[in-house]
């Protein structure tokens, strides 16, 4: 029964993906994969973590249908791997879920093959089924039937005509191989496996720091003195830097995009170096027993001040980036700066929580990866090409139309709608019309597997224009 379910899923896999690009098929695949996982691992779905991953996976599949962007496809694949990993072991860290999910998806079959229990089950099945007898039962009659069909067709023209009518063109070997690949994938994920000993090691590590036995107060005092001096001076230096940066922002009159770009990128480089060094220094001093040292209050406060000053540095970079965007429009790189700023802010916040609540390095890795994972899902929920186009054409002081034309076709309809409301050259207008026509043609030529939200909005546009004509 279980093999039949996987076989049906494999045929559906081929139906969805063979010779198609992504669209509605990826959303339907999500439902199919979830049903298969539920069918084989019903008990594991009682866990809240697994349920949350299932919802996130379905949400990412809907986002692929709505946006059909590379980012949404990437997020969907990552959610699939995470869900499979969560079914393998729901209590592990997110990166272990990725490891388990990826391993299960690509090599679960080989892993299960080595499992002793499974091997013994397989041998029992083989003994019961009597494989050589089965091969004889199927193989020998087939060979003799083919031989006699070849003989008889020589002797009887009516029989030959009958045989000639049999057409095997419907059998497509590539389709069969594709179905086999689907079967391999579904058979892998049906019973998720674990990467050991990595999973056990991860489960045994908690998020809390523990005080070790060799507690030398003298060495801790020296370390505390060093930390206080170092962080005190670094705080002073960063404070001076921030003050000069505020003065330079207030005095800044920049008319060229290149000048502002240099300023933002220099700021980002400073930020990268500063935050990395800040986190390393804090992690070094608060790696062990200094967390439990009675006289560590000054060092802790200096660390919190250092983190706060780095947050101020982030705010300054965000102001510069916003000035840049307001003057010269949105681009993927400028959005990337915001993503980086946000992730850095989260990194600093988790470092603050680590020091405050006596957490270890595992806590930092786990929480930051979790936030990065959620950020990816949230970012994939936005049609960035459309957002960039809308902002640049309606709010930015200046914009680069050639950049907007070169973006993916997901901004084609909006560009076409706004082309007459902005001052652009005739060549650019023609390029926009060409892009629009090409996109509409592409939408109309899609198979049902490749459909996405734009297909339905196009139908709506057609209906509206028809009603206007009537």
């Amino acid at each position: 029964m279980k093999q039949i379910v996987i076989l049906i899923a494999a045929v559906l896999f081929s139906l969805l993906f063979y010779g198609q690009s992504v669209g509605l098929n990826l959303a339907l695949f999500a439902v199919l994969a979830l049903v298969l996982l539920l069918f084989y691992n019903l008990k594991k779905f009682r866990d809240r973590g697994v349920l949350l991953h299932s919802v996130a996976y379905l949400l990412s599949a809907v986002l692929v249908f709505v946006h059909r962007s590379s980012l949404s496809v990437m997020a969907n694949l990552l959610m699939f791997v995470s869900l499979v990993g969560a079914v393998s072991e729901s209590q592990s860290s997110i990166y272990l879920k990725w490891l388990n999910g990826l391993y299960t998806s690509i090599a679960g079959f080989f892993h299960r093959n080595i499992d002793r229990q499974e091997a013994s089950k397989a041998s029992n099945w083989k003994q019961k089924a009597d494989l050589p007898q089965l091969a004889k039962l199927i193989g020998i009659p087939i060979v003799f039937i083919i031989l006699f069909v070849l003989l008889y067709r020589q002797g009887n023209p009516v029989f030959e005509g009958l045989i000639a009518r049999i057409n095997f063109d419907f059998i497509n070997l590539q389709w069969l191989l594709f179905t086999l690949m689907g079967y391999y994938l579904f058979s892998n994920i049906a019973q998720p496996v674990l990467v050991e000993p990595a999973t056990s090691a991860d489960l045994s590590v908690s998020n809390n720091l523990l005080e070790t036995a060799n507690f030398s107060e003298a060495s801790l005092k020296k370390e505390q003195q060093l930390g206080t001096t170092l962080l005190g001076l670094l705080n002073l230096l960063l404070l001076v830097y921030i003050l000069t940066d505020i003065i330079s922002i207030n005095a800044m009159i920049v008319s060229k995009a290149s000048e502002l770009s240099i300023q933002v990128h220099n700021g980002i480089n400073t930020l990268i170096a500063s935050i990395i060094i800040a986190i390393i220094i804090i992690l070094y001093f608060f790696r062990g027993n200094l967390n439990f040292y009675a006289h560590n209050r000054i060092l802790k406060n200096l660390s919190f001040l250092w983190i706060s000053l780095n947050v101020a540095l982030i705010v300054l970079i965000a102001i510069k980036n916003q000035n840049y965007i307001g003057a010269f429009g949105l681009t993927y790189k400028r959005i990337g700066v915001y993503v980086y700023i946000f992730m850095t802010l989260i990194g600093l916040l988790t470092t603050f929580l680590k020091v405050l609540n006596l957490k270890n390095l595992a806590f930092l890795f786990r929480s930051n990866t979790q936030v990065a994972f959620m950020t990816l899902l949230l970012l994939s929920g936005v049609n960035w090409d459309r957002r960039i186009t809308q902002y640049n054409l309606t709010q930015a002081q200046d914009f680069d139309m050639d950049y907007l034309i070169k973006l993916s076709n997901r901004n084609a309809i909006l560009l076409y709608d706004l082309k007459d409301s902005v001052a652009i050259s005739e060549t650019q207008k023609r390029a926009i019309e060409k892009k629009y026509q090409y996109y509409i043609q592409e939408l109309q030529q899609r198979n049902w597997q490749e459909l996405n939200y734009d297909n339905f909005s196009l139908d709506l546009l057609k209906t509206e224009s028809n009603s206007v004509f009537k």
Partner: protein
Amino acid sequence: MNLSSNLGKSTLLASAVFWGILGSKVLQITFMPFVLLSFIPIFICVASSVIVSICPIFWLTERESFNKKRIFKAYFPYYAIVVFGICVLAIIDNSFSILAIAFFSSAFISTCQSWVWFAKEEQP
């Protein structure tokens, strides 16, 4: 370690996968001599990849307390993920050509199965 048997079986498997995929698009009856001849380069590829990338792991890590099955469970996951990544990148780099798909799929499947055969060997 029964290396010769493993290499023989892996070569047969790699040939079957390679020609199975390639044959789904371009195979004709006139290719038969090439299929037979291809066993030699396929054997060289299989032998070199198994001897260079799999055998050293067993040779270096096998102990009485750390048998072949445990070696498999400890190292195979990372090996499979790395090889899968390399094969996928190579297929993308070759613009999904049928030759690249056939070659790298057979490489992935035969090396993974080779691990299974090594791990399933009876302990002396």
